[in-house]
């Protein structure tokens, strides 16, 4: 406990320092080196340096143009202060290389003495320090041979390790991960952990619902499907736990200071988290292995308990990470005031809701991909029928959850803006806005694939041929919406192109790039997808109720009016003020939701005693449709990785936004291309793992191994 408090105390001291001076990388050292309060002259020295041009050439730790302060403090002693003052004043050349230092005749001796003394008091508070420094810098030089960049990482790491006062109990603020660096290591592992966790938490939700449908309708195939879904759970659960352990381990080793700070804030919330994990394991295995062993009601209760535990787990974990985005319940210096407020911070609930829905979409898509994978490997018609149906249900779950997702995202974005306008601008208007263009394209791909799958699905329904002619128009609508949805506002253009356009915005495309157009497009897109589904559902049915014709007209009118309403509001958005425009999206959404609900109700009554004109031939599905399912799963995963990066990345150079700065070498925002590559690699690793899980899940269905002779006999007997 003592060292823990010491760490906390050190952090806050370090924090005060950071709000005053802006010497970013200094903090790392300051936290360790400054056992006592800052010397009185420190602040003056920093102000003076900031007022002069020192920092253009000299950085705390890294040699930029001139030597780092650290190196200076290592080379000279305090006795040299007057000599150094004179040197700064006169300028110099040759001591540190062939780059000359400009003379500074305008600075007074007194000021210069303050600044130079500060260098020593910060970087060489004791003589012992000098020896330590020299040694470690030498070690770092040896390291830097390997690669320039990581040599630098190593050098910084080595020097920070060699900081004065490497006493037992004091640790560096950061350690470096070899080759890829700490950030990328934690990034990939965290993302993988999250994807598996999302899957493990989502599957029980819809497995339970499907099991319940089976229980209510008494149809065994629902029960079998739910069982098949949970087959994927147990292995995934182990993967989730292993990745979680790896993530914790990496964070503790690579970011000790951040972790001790977060521990100081969240303290005991770690305990229920760990306990709930036990409960999760118990319920999950009981749910899976107990299939058919309990009365259906008890089994359903087990599933419910599993889901409740899972939701609690995700809510606890969300509180930690959302605190890093939008800290609450702490003082400006970061000291804990109220633990519950820290948990219930601004983005906690929005992230909880957004994640729950996204998890279901993601889990459904992975389950759908599993169905596709098994379908393509199936050898009998029964298997094909079974897995075709499984893929269909998985996709249905994914798309149903996808439809409300934009609204949950909207709520989250709104809360981020409300928390910090700066963060909101960084998110939607700054460099990160390009990732939203990629997001838009991926969402377009999702909608296209989902519709495509439904259209192809009509081929397995006898009687659905009469709807084929609509595909063209549905596709046209999806395409136009997709194009509008994916058109950026600020275009990537060369200066020549920009000149022709008369600025950064194209006069015609600019119209498509703004909020009103996007909202309208996505609403029409959702509506179109719903119509595709409706036609699919009607494929083999003919309404027999007397009012069928009127019902059709009513549905048609609802769709037409809603579309017109949505488009009119969208166009109106261009002519009203921003705050009115933002509010227009609400009636748009409500109209679309209302249309979908009312049409569903009409349809249910209209087709209650419908004549079945043909059967659904499960399994009679073209292979290419299965690739659509796999594409949907990959796109979801990719989207999740991308948006996960955005969520984390908008903190920029902060660990805890506005409270604890990131002082590591990775504190910069990576280029979009680099981020996209890391996300892509993560997705590849994820699918490699998923392939292993699919294979493991298929083992239980394999025949038992028998010695060769026996198997020949048995085949002989079978013949």
């Amino acid at each position, binding site marked *: 406990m003592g060292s823990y408090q010491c760490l906390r105390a050190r952090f806050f001291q370090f924090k005060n320092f950071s709000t005053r001076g802006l010497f970013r990388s200094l903090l790392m050292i300051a936290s360790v080196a400054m056992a006592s309060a800052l010397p009185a002259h420190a602040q003056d020295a920093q102000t003076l340096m900031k007022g002069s041009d020192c920092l253009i050439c000299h950085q705390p730790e890294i040699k930029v143009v001139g030597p780092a302060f650290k190196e200076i403090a290592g080379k000279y002693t305090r006795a040299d202060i007057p000599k150094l003052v004179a040197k700064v004043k006169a300028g110099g050349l040759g001591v540190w290389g062939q780059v000359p230092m400009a003379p500074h005749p305008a600075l007074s001796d007194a000021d210069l003495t303050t600044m130079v003394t500060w260098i020593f008091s910060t970087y060489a508070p004791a003589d012992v320090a000098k020896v330590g420094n020299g040694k470690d810098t030498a070690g770092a030089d040896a390291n830097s041979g390997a690669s320039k960049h990581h040599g630098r990482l190593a050098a910084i790491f080595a020097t920070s390790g060699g900081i004065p006062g490497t006493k037992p109990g004091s640790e560096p603020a950061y350690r470096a991960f070899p080759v890829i660096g700490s950030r990328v290591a934690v990034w990939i592992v965290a993302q993988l952990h999250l994807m598996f966790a999302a899957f493990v938490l989502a599957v029980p939700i819809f497995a339970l619902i499907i099991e319940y449908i089976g229980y209510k309708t008494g149809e065994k195939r629902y029960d079998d499907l739910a069982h098949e879904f949970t087959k994927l759970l147990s292995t995934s659960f182990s993967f989730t736990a292993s990745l979680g352990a790896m993530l914790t381990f990496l964070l503790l080793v690579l970011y000790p200071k951040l972790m001790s700070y977060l521990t100081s804030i969240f303290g005991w919330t770690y305990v229920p988290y760990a306990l709930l994990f036990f409960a999760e394991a118990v319920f999950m295995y009981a749910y899976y292995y107990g299939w058919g062993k309990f009365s259906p009601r008890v089994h359903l209760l087990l599933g419910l308990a599993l889901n409740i535990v899972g939701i609690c787990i995700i809510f606890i974990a969300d509180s930690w990470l959302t605190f890093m985005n939008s800290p609450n319940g702490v003082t400006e210096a970061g000291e804990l005031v109220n633990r519950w407020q820290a948990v219930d911070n601004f983005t906690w609930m929005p992230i909880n809701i957004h994640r729950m829905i996204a998890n279901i979409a993601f889990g459904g898509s992975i389950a759908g991909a599993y169905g596709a994978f098994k379908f393509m490997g199936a050898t009998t018609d029964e298997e094909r029928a079974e897995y075709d149906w499984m893929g269909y249900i998985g996709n249905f779950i994914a798309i149903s959850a996808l439809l409300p997702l934009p609204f949950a995202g909207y709520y989250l974005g709104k809360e981020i803006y409300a928390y910090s306008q700066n963060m909101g601008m960084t998110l939607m208007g700054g460099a990160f806005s390009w990732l939203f263009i990629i997001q838009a394209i991926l969402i377009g791909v999702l909608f296209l694939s989902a519709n495509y799958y439904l259209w192809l699905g009509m081929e397995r329904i006898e009687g659905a041929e009469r709807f*084929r002619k609509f595909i063209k128009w549905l596709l046209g609508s999806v395409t136009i919406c997709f194009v509008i949805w994916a058109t950026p506002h600020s275009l990537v253009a060369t200066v020549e192109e920009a000149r022709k356009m008369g600025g950064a915005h194209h006069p015609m495309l600019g119209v498509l790039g703004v909020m009103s157009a996007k909202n309208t497009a996505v609403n029409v897109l959702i509506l179109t997808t719903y119509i595709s589904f409706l036609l699919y559902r009607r494929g083999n049915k003919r309404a027999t109720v007397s009012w069928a014709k009127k019902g059709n007209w009513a549905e048609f009118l609802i769709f037409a009016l809603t579309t017109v309403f949505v488009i009119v509001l969208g166009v109106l958005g261009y002519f009203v003020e921003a705050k009115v425009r933002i509010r227009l999206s609400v009636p748009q959404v409500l109209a679309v939701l209302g249309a979908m609900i009312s049409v569903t109700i009409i349809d249910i009554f209209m087709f209650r005693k419908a004549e079945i004109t043909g059967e659904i031939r499960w399994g009679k599905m073209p292979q290419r449709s299965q690739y659509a399912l796999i594409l949907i799963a990959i796109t979801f995963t990719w989207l999740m990785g991308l948006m996960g990066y955005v969520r984390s990345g908008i903190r920029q150079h902060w660990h805890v936004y506005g409270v604890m700065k990131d002082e590591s070498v990775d504190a910069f925002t990576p280029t979009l291309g680099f981020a996209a590559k890391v996300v892509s690699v993560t997705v590849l690793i994820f699918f490699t793992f998923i392939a292993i899980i699919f294979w493991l899940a298929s083992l239980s269905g394999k025949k038992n191994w028998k010695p060769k002779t026996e198997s020949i006999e048995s085949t002989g007997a079978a013949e």
Partner: protein
Amino acid sequence: MNLWVCIPAVLALIGLRFLKTHILGWLAAWWICVFVILKFGMVPPMPSSIIGLYVAILTSVLLLYLTSDTERMSQAGNFLMRFFGERKFAPYLWTAAVLIPLLAGTNAYLAASKEVEAPASGRTIHPAPPGEMTFKGKKIDLIKASNPFRELETKDPTAFETHVAAGRKVYYQNCVFCHGDNMEGDGIFAYGYDPLPANFQDPTTIGMLQESYLFWRIAKGGPGLPEESTPWSSAMPAWEKFVSEDDIWNVILFLYRFTGQKPRAQEKAE
């Protein structure tokens, strides 16, 4: 829009409906017509990045259309089999075998023989303003700040006009050189800049922003852009060194007056 290009292309697509076209011919016609509209039918031309995006969407959508129906797909497949196998198609096959590489080569040649130009910039000129700023030692809360002269528009129109006139003077003494006579970002200096000076006639620039945002941007200029999302490339000077606080508010009035746009209203605290 260049109607000489767009109308024939659209007519061709409409005409296609009345012809019995093979599915592949139909797809090719659609691809070509839409491409021609995108590439040559737009005035001013769209940047190539957007054309690329649209053509990619178009291509995949047409392929999806082809494969969304097994019958349609086998129609295309059968034709291709015959095209590659049957003797009577041999001359066409050879023509295609020569034309396709030639087309690709021409494209590569054209792309490589372009004059050297600066690469396309994906920079968003949408910096996040700080919550507050200091103007010559005076603290200004940017979230609450509003144009002190805006209310005169209704209360005292004559006084308002004097402020607009003062703003006009400020604009033509300082801003016109870059932002241009018509505020379209095409002043005499604009030729030297990348990115170009902002075009205020564009309804999605100042019309989307609050007056306090403009005040901050004018007062602090390029050097005052935030640390986030650096490096910025803005050549605009920090006008607080040359223009008084009142004059900045005046010129903002003039910008909106001249372009006929309205500033974004202040958000009310909930």
